[in-house]
């Protein structure tokens, strides 16, 4: 059987042309992303922080630290590392929320946004250098305040920073191999954002003591 068997050539061509002319994209339901995000977040929290569920109210920083360390063992691929970093950061954020630390977006006015998709690879290295600089400043500031932090929180913080730094290193290596890959650049940007967010929150926390 071939494509033209039994069919009138003109009719078949017309049908194929009509099929090709159909729209390749149809706008999704505007609420779809919110639902998807909620389902993903719900899954992440359920997987990582079962203590957040109703029957276990002993959501302590120590428990969160133990779980984050146990669940998120170091992984081999850059992508896994990045995702792991996102998850471990989520765990820490839950611990921070438990301590009722209010969050202020854009503490230092630098709120890195969706840059990777719209920025040329050469410019991205400048952007990432700025991230590095901002992270270093925050980290230096945090080092001075470290004695004011609860030891368990310091343990979680160090563990998260370690994972995020690994994710950043792995993703940077991947980006070096594929400098035009916007997805990898986006993941690197997210890892940097998470690191800055983590440092900001830890700084806020130290200030609140």
């Amino acid at each position: 059987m071939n494509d033209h068997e039994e069919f009138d050539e003109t009719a078949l061509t017309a049908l194929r042309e009509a099929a090709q002319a159909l729209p390749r994209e149809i706008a999704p339901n505007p609420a779809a992303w919110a639902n998807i995000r909620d389902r993903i977040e719900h899954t992440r929290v359920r997987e990582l922080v079962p203590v957040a569920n109703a029957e276990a109210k002993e959501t302590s920083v120590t428990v969160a630290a133990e779980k984050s360390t146990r669940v998120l063992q170091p992984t081999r691929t850059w992508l896994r590392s990045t995702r792991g970093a996102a998850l471990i950061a989520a765990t820490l954020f839950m611990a921070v929320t438990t301590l009722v630390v209010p969050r202020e977006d854009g503490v230092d006015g630098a709120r890195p946004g969706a840059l990777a998709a719209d920025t040329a690879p050469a410019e991205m290295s400048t952007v990432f250098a700025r991230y590095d600089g901002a992270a270093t400043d925050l980290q230096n500031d945090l080092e001075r305040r470290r004695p004011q932090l609860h030891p368990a929180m310091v343990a979680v913080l160090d563990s998260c920073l370690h994972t995020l730094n690994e994710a950043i290193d792995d993703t940077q290596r991947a980006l070096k191999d594929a400098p035009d890959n916007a997805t990898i650049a986006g993941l690197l940007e997210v890892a940097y954002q998470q690191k800055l967010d983590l440092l900001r929150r830890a700084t806020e926390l130290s200030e609140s003591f």
Partner: protein
Amino acid sequence: MQAFERLYQQHAGRVNALCRRLAVDVNRADELMQDVFVRAWEKLESFRGESSLDSWLHRVTVNVFLAADRGDRRRRAHEDIADDDTYEHTANTASSDPGDRIDLERAIAALPQGARVAFVLHDIEGYSYEEIAAMSGIAAATVRVQLHRARRHLMEALQ
């Protein structure tokens, strides 16, 4: 999550179009598309860049659709091939112009499922028989048969 949201923004239109054509029912297509992106998030680490992200998402879409359909079919005890006998020329009431997009969409929606999947993936999305076979877990020869059936139905419906 921001990176994944960006991925969603880039690909949601195409994935949604595929979901609409595979699932036909708009509500079911909406659910399917959400399932696809949740599954994509879960399986993102299995994406190695060997194919384009677009193709990978289409593969996930077809897999999620077929898995959901298997569940539906178990409930309905309704066989795909048997659809041939129950096929309704719902497009007959529409314009006979085969270039009319709405008529063609209606005619595609009325196809038996196997034929619809083959037609959507081959004639609209441009995948080869082998690619469709790999996506849907059937033989390439079966894809050809289903595509032939789809074209026959569509030509009859649009005449």
